């Protein structure tokens, strides 16, 4: 009797977990991760704690640089405020001639140093919020402020699903979105928020976990 359905033959290679060689070549090009990198495939100069000797980083993600625009704008605005003070005080009939010059100088310097630290902490919050995908696992490094940081990682075999959302006008223009990685059971889910090229990132992770998206 003729077979109605013959299941496709699965080779050993198809059942095995994907490796770097299995990922589509156009997604893997060697890159140099510089100070402002937010999407980098196969970065050769990035290393993380507990990285195995033969463990290669395939994807390095941060929030899109455009998401820094708010604190950069605030910094510029705060920097300009003291320049306006000599013009504002006469308008408001305020007299500061009784304040010693030394105190004014120290106050100005302190003010600018405080702005500098605001910019530095804001930059660090962006710089150290990193999402790393290697051949074996996903590492999510979160840096909330000067006293809180969180490092989470999961093996590729624990990942169930990966998807992304790209909502809004600005995120569409600059091509960034949120990448969500769902893990098995009670493990925490991973997310790379405002990541550049979310479709490509999802594709890389999906290829690694075995299901082509």
């Amino acid at each position, binding site marked *: 009797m003729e077979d109605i359905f013959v299941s496709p033959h699965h080779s050993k290679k198809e059942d095995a977990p994907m490796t770097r060689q299995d990922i589509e070549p156009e997604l893997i090009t060697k890159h140099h991760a510089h100070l402002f990198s937010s999407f980098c495939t196969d970065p050769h100069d*990035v290393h993380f704690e507990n990285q195995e000797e033969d463990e290669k980083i395939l994807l390095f993600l941060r929030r899109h640089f455009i998401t820094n625009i708010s604190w950069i704008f605030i910094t510029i605005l705060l920097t300009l405020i003291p320049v306006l003070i000599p013009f504002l005080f006469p308008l408001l009939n305020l007299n500061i001639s009784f304040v010693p010059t030394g*105190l004014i100088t120290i106050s100005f310097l*302190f003010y600018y*140093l405080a702005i500098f630290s605001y910019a*530095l902490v804001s930059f*660090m919050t962006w*710089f150290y919020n990193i999402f790393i995908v290697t051949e074996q696992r996903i590492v999510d490094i979160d840096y909330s402020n000067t*006293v809180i*940081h969180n490092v989470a990682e999961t093996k590729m075999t624990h990942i169930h699903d990966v998807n992304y959302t790209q909502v809004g006008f600005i995120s569409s223009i600059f091509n960034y979105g949120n990448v969500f990685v769902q893990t098995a059971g009670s493990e925490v889910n991973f997310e790379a928020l405002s990541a550049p090229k979310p479709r490509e990132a999802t594709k890389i992770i999906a290829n690694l976990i075995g299901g082509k998206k």
Partner: protein
Amino acid sequence: MELTALIVKITTLTLIGFYVIFTLVIFNQVLVMNRIVMLNHASNLLKIIATVHIILAVSLFIAALVIL
């Protein structure tokens, strides 16, 4: 007037003193984060910036101590 000047000086120095401690916390965070993830040149640059930040804060403290 002397008392007011003294109060202003002590208040300013205390504020800047706390700020110096804050810069040390930032520097420590940079070191901790650089241990967790290392991006060759970029991490070193951030360490240099954090060091300069401490130097500036300490310089301001000394300047306040002398000028006020």
